């Protein structure tokens, strides 16, 4: 570090410029991480909050539309609950609706029909749990949007009236829409298109979207074979949320390129820096500096630069992130940012290391005869 820190100080203009580039990359990385995490939260937090390990949909359903297209028979719940390793199995219904609240707010909702009292029934933070026939328990974000306890929500076209009886503590959204839990029977009526007072066909009383399964070491293929269903693990089911795969893959691609850019920029900088110092390095080698000493010194220098720049960038990114408006899906996750920062520094260091490795090839004999 003896030489490294002195060089950092002496060539501070160059290192500051380089540090600024890494800082900007780190800012971008934090913002992308927040956006990415925000989009994930917006897209599938309702699923993430489900206490299930897998979901069994109808056989052959389109994977990316399973939550809206799948229809299976209520009997399959029985079949699944008998599978080895399954501790809980319960019917699950889902539907996307447009609605209007009694206070005039237009609201889109993802209806999750569950049996009150089943393991799927949510725990309301305020108000009461699911129970009354038309009572719904909504995501915290719906309350943020203006929905209040006791408000009535009217489903468009059908005219079905639902009452907000509880609000959840966390964000529960699905496909960027707030989740409203409701009793399975109410969900079946809406799913069958039966308005208030209209009879619900018996067939519809036998229909659900999926079997929600909780267990350990469950053989999904065997369960599917027995029940005639098609299972997805909970995380696989995220891909069935509208737009989820496209959004996350786009952001992942951008982040991938950002890491690549960081590695290349660091590599390019330290390549030029090492070549510029070639004669000095030859002199140092002539003076008896071991290659290992010079490599360690160079890597320490890169490490200081990357860590300092990443720290400033992450700080600035978090600061900027806090200014992001309400409507933007932006959520910073400590773990995600930590992993991203480690990747950024790690890949930057890898790029630098490749460049710094040239030190080993410097011929000490070139220290002589070189006029400077």
């Amino acid at each position, binding site marked *: 570090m003896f030489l490294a820190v002195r060089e950092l100080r002496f060539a501070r203009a160059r290192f500051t410029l380089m540090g600024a580039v890494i800082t900007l990359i780190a800012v971008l990385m934090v913002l992308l991480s927040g956006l990415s995490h925000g989009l994930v939260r917006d897209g599938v937090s309702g699923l993430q909050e489900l206490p299930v390990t897998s979901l069994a949909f109808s056989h052959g359903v389109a994977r990316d539309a399973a939550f809206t297209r799948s229809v299976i028979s209520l009997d399959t719940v029985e079949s699944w609950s008998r599978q080895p390793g399954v501790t809980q199995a319960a019917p699950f219904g889902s539907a996307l609706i447009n609605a209007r609240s009694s206070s005039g707010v237009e609201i889109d909702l993802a209806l999750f029909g569950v049996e009150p009292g089943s393991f799927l029934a949510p725990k309301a933070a305020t108000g009461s749990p699911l129970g009354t026939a038309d009572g719904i328990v909504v995501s915290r974000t719906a309350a943020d949007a203006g929905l209040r306890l006791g408000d009535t929500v009217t489903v468009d076209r059908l005219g079905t009236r639902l009452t907000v009886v509880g609000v959840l503590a966390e964000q529960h959204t699905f496909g960027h829409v707030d989740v409203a839990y409701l009793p399975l029977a109410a969900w079946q009526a809406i799913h069958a298109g039966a308005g208030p007072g209209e009879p619900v066909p018996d067939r519809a009383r036998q229909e659900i979207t999926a079997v929600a399964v909780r267990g350990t070491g469950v053989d999904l293929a065997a369960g599917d074979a027995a029940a005639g269903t098609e299972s997805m693990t909970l995380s696989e089911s995220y891909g069935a949320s509208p737009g989820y795969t496209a959004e996350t893959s786009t952001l992942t691609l951008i982040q991938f390129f950002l890491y690549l850019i960081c590695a290349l920029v660091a590599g390019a900088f330290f390549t030029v820096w090492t070549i510029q110092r070639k004669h000095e390095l030859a002199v140092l080698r002539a003076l008896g500096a071991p290659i290992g000493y010079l490599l360690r010194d160079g890597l320490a220098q890169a490490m200081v630069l990357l860590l300092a720049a990443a720290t400033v960038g992450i700080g600035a990114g978090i600061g900027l992130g806090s200014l992001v408006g309400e409507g933007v899906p932006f959520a910073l996750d400590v773990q995600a940012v930590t992993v991203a920062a480690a990747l950024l520094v790690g890949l930057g260091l890898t790029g630098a290391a490749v460049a710094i490795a040239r030190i080993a090839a410097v011929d000490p004999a070139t220290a*002589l005869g070189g006029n400077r």
Partner: protein
Amino acid sequence: MNTHTETTRQASRPDTPGPAHQDGLIMRDVTMLLGDGEDTVRALDSVHLTVAAGEFAAIVGPSGSGKSSLLAVAGGLAAPDSGTVTIAGRPMTAASRRARTALRRDLVGFVFQSGNLLPALTAIDQLRLPTRFASPGAVGRDPMDLLTEVGMAGKADRRPHQLSGGERQRVGIARALVTGPRLLLVDEPTAALDQARSRDIVQMLARETRQHAVATVMVTHDTEVLQYCDSVYEMMDGALSKK
């Protein structure tokens, strides 16, 4: 300062056989080819050279005759094709690259044409750096004492670009001596200096050579300064002869 070894080493003159030769540089039948194919140059052609501790040897010769090559081989920067080099009784030529680096670190000091100081370091740090990677147990010299000795104590905190050519060369000499080397290799130290300063620098080298009982080999173009040297050799097409 180690006055005891100084006096014992100072007593031995270049031409007197004895242990002093063992302390210095011995090159035996050293040949080195450079370049490849048709362009192969015999940079060193059966070179024999013995420089005792406390002896100040000069090498003159036209450009391209192999003077720098001789210094490179003597200091273990390059390996010869045949022949042997020993410094203070330690064989240089048999050693691996890593071992040569270690021997260089412990036994050899280099002074380059224009100092070749590191631009980021102050004068005092130029001297501290070699002590950072010195072998454990190595007895170096105090950087500030040495700077004082070469008359640079007042400019210890200046960087190379704030020093004159002669001052840079003084710092370069002090840096070469800070690890307490047994062999000092000096490549055209006065190439960038005027006559008065050249004389200064060479006198300083002569003084350090004797005071610290180092074997010193200096390559020079400058016949003016040969008067300060104990022995003078001439290099011609890779062959070395005593003048």
